[in-house]
């Protein structure tokens, strides 16, 4: 008889789809690693910030020339529907047809495929990816949702939406039920290439209330729960049957200033850079983060992120630091005249953010800025002009460099620069030019230098106020030994979780 446990994860919500790209979201990321395998994975345990790559569905990779990479595909890997994974499937997974072509099936994935020129299965076990600029970090991208391999034939047959409802991957568990408003049920995939999955079934069950999640944990109904309000950690730790676990996330939380003066939406005082300086300088981010998070996370200088180690320098200080006097001076210098500054915030968008917003608003009010908080309940309401500030977060999961953050989020094709309803930034020509050089530069040292120049321009423009690196936390039943990793992902496959004796 199967003695493996039925495992229950109490989550706060589920995303509408578990298709790797379409479904990419905090709530789906928890589940995807159980369903899919990436081409390449990180050495999660020893190098949590992700410098070192390991084979997964790709057993080996090499850079054939500046613009070409070849990946060798693992043989004998089965999809949940029983079919064997081929290089065709991998090529399709990364293809223009699926992601980056003109009529791509999941256009939302283009941000992962910038610079792709072609993807091709050149033989049964080899896939070749060509780029239009040299990309020494390309394999890093395949640890992201982009790398989750999907079965081509089935995918095309059912379409993106249906696939997202009943996905098929190669991962240790297969989906048996998915009901976005209540639960996802997974079952051990016995043909898993990576060993026997340690759990018989996994249910990700929505339990919206923290109290109910905690009660269920303590009562033994759930084995892992997510999202502990930071103030409740102490309470959680008083229960002997559960353990609190927390990890840095791969998101940076911030406020975007609306730097654009769009006459159709009325005057925007924040388009005055001096006001932005004043507002940034008015905030003691270190104290705020300390108060809200203790030492669980920190307030970064812009783009100085430890998860891209080569570009990280602990000594860097932000251009605009906390300086109340300077804040007053900048305000004085600005053309600000008491106009209302609207702050669009999605309620509950990130943990502790609502509290921070109230704190920031108060500081800004004290500075003499007429802040109006517009706290709304969904993104469509927030992502709409007019606003002076907008909440946003910036994901760094990409390729181990800050490319996604500085270029993906602030480049000329970024949402911030292009979207009709909520664009708030026009990258200066100088920034764009530097960016193009940066992308094409293969040498790390030079790349870092270009990066620093871009950051300097960015800081001068001050289009956002960075707040903190996100935190992911869980409560785990003491019946289990579980290895957590950075970010939202939950690894529940062989080697990551086991029943304690």
């Amino acid at each position: 008889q199967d003695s493996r446990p039925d495992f229950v994860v109490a989550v706060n919500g589920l995303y509408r789809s578990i298709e790797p790209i379409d479904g990419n979201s905090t709530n789906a990321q928890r589940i995807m690693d159980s369903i899919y395998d990436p081409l390449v994975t990180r050495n999660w345990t020893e190098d949590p910030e992700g410098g070192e790559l390991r084979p997964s569905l790709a057993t080996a990779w090499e850079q054939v020339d500046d613009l070409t990479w070849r990946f060798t595909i693992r043989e004998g890997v089965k999809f949940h529907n029983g079919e064997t994974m081929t290089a065709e499937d991998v090529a399709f997974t990364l293809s223009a047809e699926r992601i980056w072509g003109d009529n791509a099936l999941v256009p939302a994935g283009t941000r992962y495929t910038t610079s792709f020129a072609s993807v091709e299965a050149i033989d049964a076990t080899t896939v070749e990816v060509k780029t239009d600029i040299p990309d020494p970090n390309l394999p890093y991208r395949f640890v992201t949702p982009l790398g989750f391999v999907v079965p081509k034939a089935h995918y095309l047959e059912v379409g993106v939406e249906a696939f997202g409802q009943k996905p098929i991957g190669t991962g240790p568990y297969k989906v048996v039920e998915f009901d976005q408003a209540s639960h996802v049920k997974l079952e051990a995939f016995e043909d898993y290439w990576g060993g026997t999955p340690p759990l018989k079934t996994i249910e990700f069950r929505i339990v919206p209330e923290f109290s109910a999640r905690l009660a269920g944990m303590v009562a033994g109904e759930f084995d892992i729960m997510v999202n502990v309000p930071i103030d409740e950690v102490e309470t959680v730790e008083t229960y002997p049957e559960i353990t609190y676990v927390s990890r840095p996330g791969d998101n940076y939380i911030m406020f975007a200033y609306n730097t654009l003066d769009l006459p159709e939406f009325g005057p925007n005082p924040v388009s005055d850079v001096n006001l932005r300086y004043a507002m940034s300088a008015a905030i003691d981010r270190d104290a705020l983060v300390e108060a809200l998070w203790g030492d669980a996370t920190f307030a970064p200088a812009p783009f100085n992120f430890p998860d891209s180690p080569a570009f990280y320098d602990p000594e860097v200080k932000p251009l605009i630091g906390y300086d109340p006097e300077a804040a007053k001076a900048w305000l004085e210098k600005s053309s600000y005249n008491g106009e209302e500054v609207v702050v669009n915030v999605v309620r509950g968008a990130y943990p502790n953010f609502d509290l921070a917003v109230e704190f920031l608003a108060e500081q800004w009010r004290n500075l003499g800025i007429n802040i109006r908080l517009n706290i709304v309940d969904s993104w469509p309401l927030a992502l709409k002009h007019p606003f002076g500030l907008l909440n946003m977060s910036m994901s760094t999961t990409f390729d181990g460099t800050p490319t996604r953050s500085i270029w993906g989020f602030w480049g000329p094709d970024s949402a911030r620069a292009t979207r009709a309803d909520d664009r708030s930034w026009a990258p200066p020509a100088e920034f764009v030019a530097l960016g193009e050089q940066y992308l094409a530069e293969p040498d790390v040292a030079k790349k870092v230098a270009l990066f620093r120049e871009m950051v300097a321009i960015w800081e001068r423009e001050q289009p956002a106020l960075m707040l903190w690196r996100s935190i992911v936390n869980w409560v785990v039943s003491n019946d289990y030994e579980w290895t957590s990793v950075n970010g939202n992902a939950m690894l529940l496959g062989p080697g990551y979780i086991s029943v304690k004796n």
Partner: protein
Amino acid sequence: MSLSFVLSKLLRLVLTVWAAATLVFIMLRLAGDPVAAMVPSDAPQIVIDRYRERFGLDQPFIIQYFAYLRGILSGDFGISFRTGGPAWDMVAPRILPTLILTGTATLVAIVLGVPAGMLAAANHNSPFDRLVMSFSVFGFAMPNFFLGILLILLFTLNWRLLPSGGFEHPQSLIMPAITLGLASAGAYARLTRSAVLEVLASPFMRTARANGVPPLRRMTHHVLRAVLVPLVTLAGFSIGALIAGAVVTETVFAWPGIGRLLVTSVTERDLAVVQLIVILAALTMAISNMMVDLLYGWLDPRIGTRRRSGAG
């Protein structure tokens, strides 16, 4: 009960549901672009445009409206933006859990409320009467999410007697049903009490008493029968309160019902699902109102085919 009576009730039902469907349609369309909720906040504009096209949101309003009405008539309630499948498929599996929850809650309310109200009336102004009345106000004045969380903390966290929520075990039903039923129980108790008092004071009860009908039979055959009419009215009314309460209760207890679905659908702007839920709610209410009306005709021989007065 004449056919024309039933027909007129049906007409009213259809009109009400149509009006509700139209209202929610207009409201949802007024509220801007649902696509922004479906794509990542950093998705560029082209992505948004493609999604709009895919879901027909680029069509003119009036065309969307008629397509929607035509769809409803043929049983097609539109496509859920979230799943890409029929909205009906999202809603259908949740109808039963919500029915179970609201049904049990009604049962709790009636089983607790009606006898308590009758006993309170029979012992008018006694300490028991006052106890029942205080308790009914308590049920009414307690925000039900708060009650729900308190129950979880006590019964799950402290005493480990009941599951914190979910739908698998029969015990899972206990706390949500109590949470949802308690407020209505108070309402039933009050209404029963005042209705019984009123009936007790009526001339025909004096006749029954003067003719020597035994007290118990007076209660069971005369009072109860007369009290059924206001009770049925309340039962009709409380459907709405139950549906509203279910939204909150289902959230607290992770009950996989329509209420939960509504909350997530609204925040994620799954228009078709929201519309369908509103239509279902309106239909339920309209049907229950119709049933109440028909029941009146049956319960109160005087009403027969005549219209109920506006006072409800």
